[in-house]
């Protein structure tokens, strides 16, 4: 990750903030402490950016999406409800929704085009913390689990989750009944869930 430019509005207690859990940091942001939000940003921005690029297919649009998503998260931080999911879920859900909105506004002809310039910039792991390592390992498992699904199931899941299409649109695109599409989504998610929770089942 490129080194950030000079810290804008840096906080002396940044190091101690980095020891806190996400939920504790969100609670601090209620007191308008942007330094706590910086830590949340640093923890999750790579995942957010990767997801946005995957959905948008373009780095420039993905940057705008991530920027708008994090500013929106900051403005609506008081609405975070931990009973509905982790901070990471909240962030990635917001990024996904914004990215889907962005591609819906874009012309259909551009959809799915990936900006080649971005792909050489793989994650280089500046800080290999245990947590970060575990996250990458999880991500690798999820990618493998998705690869191992029958094509008919992974396709409907990807079209819905990364493509922002409804089951009706997918049914029309694949020329199949809506019930079949929903069935494939259900079976695919169930299989993914089993595989992710039993990594030994994943073929090397």
């Amino acid at each position, binding site marked *: 990750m*490129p080194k950030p430019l000079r810290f804008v509005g840096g906080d002396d207690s940044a190091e101690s903030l980095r020891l806190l859990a996400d939920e504790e940091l969100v609670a601090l942001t209620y007191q308008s402490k942007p330094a706590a939000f910086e830590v949340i940003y640093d923890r999750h921005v790579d995942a957010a950016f990767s997801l946005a690029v995957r959905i948008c297919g373009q780095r420039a649009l993905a940057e705008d999406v991530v920027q708008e998503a994090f*500013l929106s998260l900051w403005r609506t931080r008081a609405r975070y409800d931990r009973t509905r999911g982790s901070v990471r879920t909240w962030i990635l859900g917001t990024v996904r929704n914004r990215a889907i909105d962005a591609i819906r506004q874009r012309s259909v002809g551009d959809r799915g085009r990936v900006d080649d310039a971005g792909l050489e910039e793989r994650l280089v792991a500046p800080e290999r913390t245990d947590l970060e390592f575990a*996250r990458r390992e999880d991500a690798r498992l999820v990618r493998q689990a998705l690869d191992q699904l029958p094509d008919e199931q992974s396709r409907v899941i990807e079209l819905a989750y990364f493509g922002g299409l409804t089951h009706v649109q997918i049914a029309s695109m694949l020329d199949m009944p809506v019930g079949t599409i929903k069935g494939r989504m259900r079976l695919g998610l169930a299989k993914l869930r089993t595989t992710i929770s039993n990594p030994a089942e994943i073929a090397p």
Partner: protein
Amino acid sequence: MNGADASHIDPDGWSGEAAAYVLGALPPDERAEFERHMGSCDMCRDAVAAMQRTTDALASAATPLAAPGTLRERVISSVYANARAQRADGPGGLLRRLALAPHRWRSALASAAVASGLTAVLVLALATGSNSSRVRVIRVPVTTTPRASAVLRVSGGHAELEVLGMPQSAPNRVYEVWIKRGGALLPTNALFTVTDRGSATVAVPGDVRGAMAVLVTSEPRGGSPAPTRTPVIVAPLS
């Protein structure tokens, strides 16, 4: 709809609906209907909760990429500017309400930005009428690029600069914000780059009360203690 509802017997009934729901694939009317149903059906709520965790994991299936550092600069400077504005503005103030509607705020500014070389200063009147919530909006051209514009929003001692249509900084260069006080140009730690669309929002560090102007120059990466180039933006405060 607790217990043995007929729709649960068909595995692709509500559970198919639940799968489409967590994948965000239900059209709005079906989504609303399913959410109503979940309100009274423990089985579907549990199914959704379990599937939701799997769906959340999908987000990490994207090819891992590093977010650019320039993105951090833009996001964090805007967050600090917003936090300061909220503190300065108090509850219910204009900035707070504008912060909740950024698109309207930006489009209003964009439509106000007619292509002229003149500096426009607007003072927005407020519903609250308190002096502390006055926002001065100073629009200035970018000297190198006729189609670009810059807007400086000043509330009390806090200022935030937003640029639109600004050219990319040259390789290994960044834009640096300066504050003119008396005859001196004081450096700030606000260094920024712009998106591919030429936009950026930057908090001006420090208190701008009593300052004469906010300026921007192109400087080598890391910034300079004194400007090395002619300013591309000059926003007069007094």
